[in-house]
């Protein structure tokens, strides 16, 4: 398989064509453009190494997310960044390349945070190895974490090593009826207390809070937070994580704003809030300029996640930063063979 990938890449370079790396295609909706001939990673699949007591799993990039999660669940472990499962064909390579994280992100960290090492094929068809299968590694620049969120524009991921964590012993979800501004204040206040909170979500005047950990700890936290216990909490978080919640299903145009957690409600459309206030999903067709302005004022940035006019939804980068990112793309993909224009009109 590796030889085949290398051949395809070298051929594309010599024919001056570009390649679009694709796993299950569950994120085809995402990104600025989908240029290039598809190179499908799914045949390069399989968990290569998994030792639960090391908290590390290594899998080929084409391994399906579902298969990987089953292997981990068998040993009571999980991907703690809770990547959205956007379809049955989702691959781990795609998950890491897109860099999406789910509800647990605010307390447990992002997809990038759990990357320990990668194998990545460059434009010469050479397979390079960065990072490793150990928890701590500062030899050389951290190229592996740079691949997370690069949307396949810096090289073809062939293998990833990820840190994994034990599944919490108990989880419990409570709901509190609160308008948006009060919910934002509450999320930030709770995050400043040492309670075992593992996710928060606000939508339609309801704040949902998930508690995870040992049973007595969860019970004590529940007593201090109050609210009403949600009977099927797990199903609710699944719907948020997998973007099957009505907010995601109902709206075709969806902006994703990554902002300071304490920012007051951004009144530009129906909103679902996650990550203790740091992630705002704003639906509808507000003026893109206003959305970008609001995100910048909130110390963050906006992306048109889905629908709408792609060119208005591109992440804004300051001129110096844009130039640096272009140089980096040029340095790592000098032939310009990988997924041009997926992340930005120029890379």
């Amino acid at each position, binding site marked *: 398989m590796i030889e085949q990938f290398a051949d395809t890449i070298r051929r594309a370079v010599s024919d001056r064509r570009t390649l679009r790396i694709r796993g299950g295609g569950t994120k085809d909706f995402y990104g600025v453009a989908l240029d290039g001939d598809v190179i499908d990673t799914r045949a390069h699949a399989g968990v290569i190494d998994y*030792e*639960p*007591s*090391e*908290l*590390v799993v290594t899998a080929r990039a084409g391994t399906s997310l579902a298969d990987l999660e089953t292997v981990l669940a068998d040993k009571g472990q999980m991907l703690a960044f809770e990547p959205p499962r956007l379809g049955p064909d989702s691959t781990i390579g795609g998950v890491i390349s897109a860099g999406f994280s789910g509800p647990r992100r605010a307390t447990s960290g*992002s997809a990038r*945070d759990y990357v320990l090492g990668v194998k990545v094929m460059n434009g010469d068809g*050479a397979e390079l*190895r*960065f990072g490793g299968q*150990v*928890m*701590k*590694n*500062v*030899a*050389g*620049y*951290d190229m592996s974490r*740079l691949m997370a969120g*690069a949307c396949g524009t810096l090289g073809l991921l062939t293998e990833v090593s990820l840190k994994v*964590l*034990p599944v919490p*012993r108990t989880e419990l979800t409570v709901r509190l009826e609160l308008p948006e501004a009060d919910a934002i204040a509450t999320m*930030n206040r709770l995050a*400043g*207390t*040492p*309670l075992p909170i593992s996710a928060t979500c606000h939508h339609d005047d309801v704040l949902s809070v998930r508690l995870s950990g*040992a*049973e*007595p*700890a969860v*019970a*004590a*936290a529940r007593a201090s937070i109050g609210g009403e216990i949600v009977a099927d909490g797990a199903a609710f978080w699944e719907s948020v994580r997998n973007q099957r919640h009505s907010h995601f299903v109902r709206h075709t145009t969806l902006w994703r704003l*990554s*902002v*300071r*957690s*304490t920012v007051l409600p951004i009144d530009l459309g129906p909103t679902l809030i996650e990550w203790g206030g*740091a*992630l705002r999903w704003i639906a509808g067709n507000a003026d893109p300029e206003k959305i970008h302005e609001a995100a910048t004022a*909130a*110390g*963050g*940035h906006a*992306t048109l996640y889905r629908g709408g006019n792609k060119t208005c939804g591109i*992440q*804004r*980068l300051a001129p*110096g*930063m844009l130039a*640096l*990112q272009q140089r*980096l793309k040029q*340095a*790592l993909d000098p032939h310009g063979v990988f997924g041009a224009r997926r*992340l930005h009109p120029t890379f």
Partner: protein
Amino acid sequence: MGKPESIDALLPPLAGKAELVRRLAAVLPPECLFDATEDMTPYECDGLSAWRTVPLVVALPQNEAQVAAVMKICNEVRVPIVPRGAGTGLSGGAQPHSGGVTLGLSKMKSILALDPVARTARVQPGVRNLAISEAAARHGLYYAPDPSSQIACSIGGNVAENSGGVHCLKYGLTVHNLLALRLVTIEGEILELGGEGLDAAGYDLMALITGSEGLLGIVTEITVKLLPKPQLARVVMAAFDSLERAGEAVANIIAAGIIPAGLEMMDQLATGAVEQFVHAGYPLDAAAVILCESDGTPEEVAAEIEHMSQVLRDSGATECRLSRDDAERLLFWSGRKAAFPAVGRLMPDYYCMDGTIPKRRLGEVLKGIAALSQQFDLKCPNVFHAGDGNLHPLIMFDANVPGQQERAEEFGARILELCVEVGGTITGEHGVGIEKINQMCVQFGTAEIETFHAVKHAFDPVGLLNPGKAIPTLQRCAEYGAMHVSRGKEAFSDLPRF
């Protein structure tokens, strides 16, 4: 170790020392610029004190604008720049360049903003690691990564090394606890990375800069995450009569689904070395001592401590002691935290290694180290971050005894190569610096090293930032490869020999 200036040659500078000093004096106040040898001696080394070089000039800017001005001048006259925080680095990252400017960030030590509601602090690079937690304490918050050097080391240095601490198994390394950085480039341009949200636009450069050892830019501002202080922490001290059994106990704890707040191990030589200074009550007849900490709400801690103690006893612990109060908890930790200085008091010199290995290979690697210790005839106590497989063998030697330093260096190099052999890495948290530059050639192949150079080139095309550190030239690897044959085949056989 390798001399940075021998083969990693730079283009000649375009100005002499007098001209450089004249130009720097125009942008820095007199008390921020040293060029006399006697004033520069305190800067001649970092924590890797066996290596000393007096820099050409020391510049200590007071603010970001001065940093940018110094960068512009050095870039114009092609003079190398070596960033320096508190100088506690153990791999020679801040080791001066005899023809370069040492750019110290020690005067930039303000906490610029602390937002207790959003739980963030925006600080200058010269702020000491512990000072952040001290400032956050009145809000019930703290900054989690806690290197043992935290009373002295700077947050800028922590970013440059991606430093860890005894709590990073549960709370992450520096890279996991940052939100934003300001970076001054070699051209003197100011870049903002990350943001106040949890992720940033475009490529994620935060992780690339973290751990880049001052080779890509000068970090002039850092926004860190603050965490709520756990209500309670308690530690179990467990003794084992064999290193293998202690290693298995570590694996059993993790396999039981526990992520301790800290999980550390010391071997008998190490406990022997520290006990006489700290009187922590370590069982001196034990082959290994494990410290296993739980933190959280009282309910969480109670449940977790019970579970941990059970696993430790089932794994064959000969003794388990639970800290009664916080004073005793700190006492149990004191020996671990003071291990380096304690060893330093037993022997004139010690050399601290930093390899990381898959935990299941622990027994094998410790045996290998013991054999090497005999072969090189140097003592080597071991302390390690057991939970994440990060070893700190401390090679004891006396530099005044002819040959000992060379033996210690050779011993260290063999340990690192052993770590790579079992699937680990040459450095978990102390960085490559100049100390492990040759072992980079063992860890990586030509194509990976070329990729590192391509990244460097995108930030610093002339190569003026911290030259000769962290990333070896291919020439260096060819020379090193000519002496060492790694993994049965010669490294870099395709490169011309010099």
